[in-house]
């Protein structure tokens, strides 16, 4: 508890000595307020992804549809659509990879800023309160951001290994989204993992979506009353939408039907395109 009581220098002026400045973004990121801007913007990118991803995933409930007289799973066609985005303007999967790089970058920045801020905050109270705190406003969600964040991160890694790479032990076939979901999520522990992780994500967003308004300085009497509702809505939407899939798989509502044609056979395309995923 080395503590100093010495008086710091008195500047007596609002003019900060003009030094050599770093580029705007780096300059801002070097400060705690700037890191919160980065948290909020990368969090918004994450939120945009999570909502779009959920809407896409819900196509699993559309089951098989008729395509050129053959029955194909709608979600498998959607998977092809993502790989074919902007074709023929750009080669297949270029846009998808572009989006993936943006998301990976956002997640890395989000974690880096969260880590930096956590260090700053630990240092700011080097000696903890020695008696119990009685929090009035800070809630479970706001105080567990680091933990729900880490749960979500571990889940993201597991989820990619599970359904993108097919390396978690379930029967898996590239591009056959419906089949892969059914195979993986029919395993009870896996379904439970998906449910728990999405609840953690919901808790993260319950605070995060409210918090980002403040971090970005979006404070206006016209919509302030709606900021908490927006957070509740986003969190509830994500949890209900995403949790419905493992639940439906366990309940047998999502059940792979092997008379349905694989999307590869439909396009007459084959394994050679698999490698570029």
């Amino acid at each position, binding site marked *: 508890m080395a503590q100093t009581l010495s008086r710091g220098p008195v500047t007596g002026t609002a003019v900060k000595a003009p030094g050599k400045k770093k580029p705007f973004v780096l300059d801002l990121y070097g400060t705690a307020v700037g890191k919160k801007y980065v948290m909020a913007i990368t969090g918004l990118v994450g939120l945009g992804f999570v909502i779009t991803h959920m809407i896409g995933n819900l196509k699993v409930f559309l089951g098989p549809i008729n395509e050129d007289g053959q029955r194909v799973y709608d979600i498998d066609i959607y998977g092809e659509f993502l790989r074919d985005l902007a074709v023929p303007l750009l080669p297949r999967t270029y846009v998808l990879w572009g989006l993936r790089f943006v998301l990976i970058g956002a997640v890395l920045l989000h974690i880096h800023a969260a880590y930096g801020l956590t260090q700053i905050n630990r240092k*700011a109270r080097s000696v903890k309160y020695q008696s119990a705190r009685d929090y009035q406003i800070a809630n479970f969600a706001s105080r567990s951001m680091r933990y729900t964040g880490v749960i979500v991160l571990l889940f993201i890694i597991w989820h990619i290994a599970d359904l993108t790479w097919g390396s978690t032990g379930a029967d898996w076939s590239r591009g056959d989204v419906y089949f892969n979901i059914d195979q993986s999520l029919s395993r009870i522990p896996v379904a439970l993992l998906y449910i728990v992780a999405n609840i953690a994500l919901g808790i993260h967003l319950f605070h995060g979506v409210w918090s980002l308004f403040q971090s970005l300085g979006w404070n206006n009497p016209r919509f302030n009353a709606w900021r908490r509702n927006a957070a509740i809505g986003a969190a509830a939407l994500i949890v209900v939408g995403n949790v419905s899939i493992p639940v439906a798989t366990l309940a047998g509502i999502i059940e792979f039907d092997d008379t349905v044609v694989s999307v590869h056979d439909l396009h007459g395309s084959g394994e050679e395109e698999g490698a570029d995923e």
Partner: protein
Amino acid sequence: MSHTLTNISLKIWRQDGPDGQGRFETHQIPEISDEASFLEMLDILNERLIEENKEAIVFDHDCREGICGTCSLMIDGQAHGPQKGTATCQLHMRTFSSGDEIVIEPWRATAFPIIKDLMVDRSPFDRIVEAGGFITAPTGGAPDANLIPIPKPVSDSAMDNAACIGCGACVAACPNGAASLFTSAKLTHLNVLPQGQSERFKRAESMVETMEEYFGSCTNHGECSSACPKEISIDAIAVMNTDYRKSKLKNRKSLSRK
């Protein structure tokens, strides 16, 4: 009608000096009027300690009417105690009941080192105000009050933020030890007014950066505002974030013009 509380026990943090180890000490208050203020209760305890040839408990206080920002104390885990919108000096024993155990700790933040017992050094707040919590006003005769028209909502907002007494409860209550509420109140108070415009972005940049030398970062828990004796709203923090971002661009532009 006044009423007497009995058998209150106090668990109070004692620490010999900045580098002392510190420990909780328990003291009994057999009887106290519910009209006594919390600090009067501590005065009575101190008189007894002095009579018993023991050292009095050191705590900060001055005006005892909620306007100076000197009093502090974490009471039962809440900055300024359980009563909303008041400083510790305005807390009365009627808020408690007979037989209660009350735990009293000093503010805890790395930037607020303990001087002794319950007294902490809050001078980093002075550093923040020195960095820009003022306007460069011309001296001379006082200008007419209505010389610069100010819209009512703007003057209301400036007044609400000017109510900050600099007590540090926001830092004490914040799980991150952040001083965002104090800094943003001091900053918003001037940044919304016409008189504050010429130095607005310099002020935002230097106050925020001085704050960051000492304090934690805001996670938008909202705990500060609920502890604040002046009920300053976290709206001010959003204003600060916006002005800080703009300051980074605007100051840069004015620098490039030299």
